[in-house]
């Protein structure tokens, strides 16, 4: 496999309007035989999955199928769970991020994550965004930080709504705004990849629509992996879809193909609503 992946450290700054077809050529993240065990019980079985840059990859499947667990491998969030063990290799820019030499702290600064429930820190809106840049030492002075906060909030489509109340606590925002704040917070560290774990599941339809628009917008700059239980959402926002069942990766491919002509019987059953 050709992995002379592009070495664009800050896709946010370059690659405006990148050509979709070209982006699909190089997998940004390449997973090989990834398995996850929780206290000895296997939850994910030998998943091999390439994730392409400048596109949205959706992971779908019935609940408990291991899609979230797999997602958490991509920034090694499973490290924080007692008794969790991940085997297999996950290459990012040619480097196995699952190897013990890689520090998860640095990895996570490159792979951001957005969670199911909006979880802003109990700090001001400004400090929520500024937290990442501060701990990673991305800025030299206050002006630079202000610039990052503004840019991140703009990218997350939240700037107009909050620019006059940056000092208010993040928890004072509505649910949809909070989730966009969390996205802005993830963007602020200038990640290359953004993982989203059912980001809309606790939001109302209008807020969901805004987030979906945002995802479509962010796709131009980032590599996005989204876990969703809604097939419509997967169909709406993703270019590629992977279907998980009972910890196994059943099928993956272009979203159009998966939803119109799935190769596997189980995929078809799930998509047509026979189980799940």
């Amino acid at each position: 496999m050709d992995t002379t992946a592009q070495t664009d450290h800050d896709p946010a700054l370059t690659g405006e309007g990148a050509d979709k077809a070209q982006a699909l050529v190089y997998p940004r993240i390449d997973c090989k035989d990834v398995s996850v065990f929780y206290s000895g019980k296997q939850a994910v079985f030998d998943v091999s999955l390439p994730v392409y840059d400048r596109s949205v990859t959706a992971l779908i499947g019935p609940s408990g199928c291991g899609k979230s667990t797999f997602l958490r491998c991509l920034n090694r969030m499973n490290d924080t769970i007692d008794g969790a063990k991940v085997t297999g290799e996950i290459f990012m820019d040619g480097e196995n991020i699952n190897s013990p030499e890689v520090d998860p702290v640095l990895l996570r600064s490159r792979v951001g994550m957005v969670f199911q429930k909006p979880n802003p820190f109990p700090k001001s809106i400004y400090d929520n965004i500024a937290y990442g840049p501060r701990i990673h030492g991305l800025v030299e002075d206050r002006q630079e930080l202000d610039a990052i906060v503004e840019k991140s909030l703009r990218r997350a489509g939240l700037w107009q709504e909050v620019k006059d109340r940056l000092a208010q606590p993040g928890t004072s925002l509505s649910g949809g705004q909070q989730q966009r704040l969390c996205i802005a917070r993830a963007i602020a560290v200038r990640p290359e990849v953004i993982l989203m774990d059912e980001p809309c599941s606790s939001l109302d339809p209008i807020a969901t629509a805004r987030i979906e628009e945002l995802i479509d917008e962010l796709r131009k700059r980032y590599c996005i992996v989204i876990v969703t239980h809604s097939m419509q959402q997967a169909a709406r926002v993703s270019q590629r879809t992977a279907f998980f069942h009972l910890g196994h990766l059943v099928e993956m491919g272009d979203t159009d193909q998966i939803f119109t002509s799935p190769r596997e019987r189980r995929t078809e059953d799930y998509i047509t609503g026979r189980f799940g």
Partner: protein
Amino acid sequence: MVQQLGQLPMGWLLTALLVFVVTTGFSVGRIRAERYLVSGGHKFHSRGNYHGYYVAMWGLLPTLLIAAVYVLFSQTAVFGLLNSELPEGFHTLSKAELQSYLEAVAGAAKTGGYAGADRIFATVTSRFLELSGSLKAATLAAMSLSAIGGIAYARRKVAPDFRARLKVERGAEAFLFLCAAIAIATTVGIVASLLYESLRFFAQVPVTDFLFGTRWNAQTSAEFGALPLFFGTFMIALIAMFVAAPIGLFAAIYLSEYASVRTRRYMKPLLEMLAGIPTVVYGFFALLVIAPGVRAAALGINSLLINIGVTSEPFLAAQPTSALAAGLVMGVMVIPFVSSLSDDVINAVPQTLRDAAFAMGATKSETIKQIILPAALPGIVASMLLAVSRAIGETMIVVMAAGQRARISFDPSTDLTTITVQIVALLTGETQFDSPKTLSAFALGLVLFLVTLGFNLIALRVVQRYREKYE
């Protein structure tokens, strides 16, 4: 004859009588109810047992009341009567002397060993026996009569359509309520007794002298400036918190954030054992092990300072008991008060916040310091307040290891005294209930109660707010 009645073992008699009344009442009610059943055809609202309970309740209630009055007031009543009959010479005795004389009489009456004593004592004792004998007889008679009355009244009520179960349940509920109301009664009792005695004290010593005076010498002369006691209490609590706050907080952080489930399961109870050890044990430990250590260290520092020529006089007091010894040991004692509650509040911080910080690439310590601790801060502050309150009210450690001298000194190796030490010192040994010396203990108690109550109320309030936020 009446004298022999005075020897009656009332404790057993009362218990026996109450048990007898309950069983009789129960069987009377039940038998009556069953007789209706046998006589045929009646459909009862309540089962026979409930009629039994009902009658027993009516028998018990008045009897119990009389018994309670007897237990609480018989001694006072007999003493009062006896007092009025005592010969002239006794009126010169002080109240306390009289009280102890009467107690000696009561003690002799109980054992019957007053035969060889002096004549007046023997006469008084036999008169005491007569009085208490008649009181006992009267009480038992009153109890029996009221029991009969109660049972007879209730028995007439037993009828097929009588709702005995509802009545019994209402009675039981009232009883349960009374049990719960004991909590209020206790608080009222504490406040009332402390206030009453304190007011008597402040009638003799001005409040301002007490609160702001700097000389405390209650034992020997009448100097009641409690400021040195407040200072000593504060100083020792401060030393204790210097130990307990960091140790307790970091132990809580380690247990809740770093330790494995196994470690936590064993370490938490071990840590809480520190709170289960009786404080008198800590006091002994402080007196025997820590205080000599503190003294030796202070002496060492003294000679070092003199040797290198910083001072020519000993710099530290280096007393055999010291504020530092008491404070250190008290600090160890309150560690679990800090760690337990801090651990709870840290655990109550939602996992999603930790996930968020980790996903941003924060290290564990950054997550704890910048996200978890600020979020848990109110609860941590509350735990510290509770610990301070515990340290202020702690008695045995300071009684044994802090000292008796009231003074204001910032030298930790000197002996300081505290509010609680003085309360114990003033109220043990022979006490005269009217002297300002004794009464001052209650004024100190009032201050102690109010201060700890303030801390507790604030802490409970903060914790409650915090819980509401995350639940």
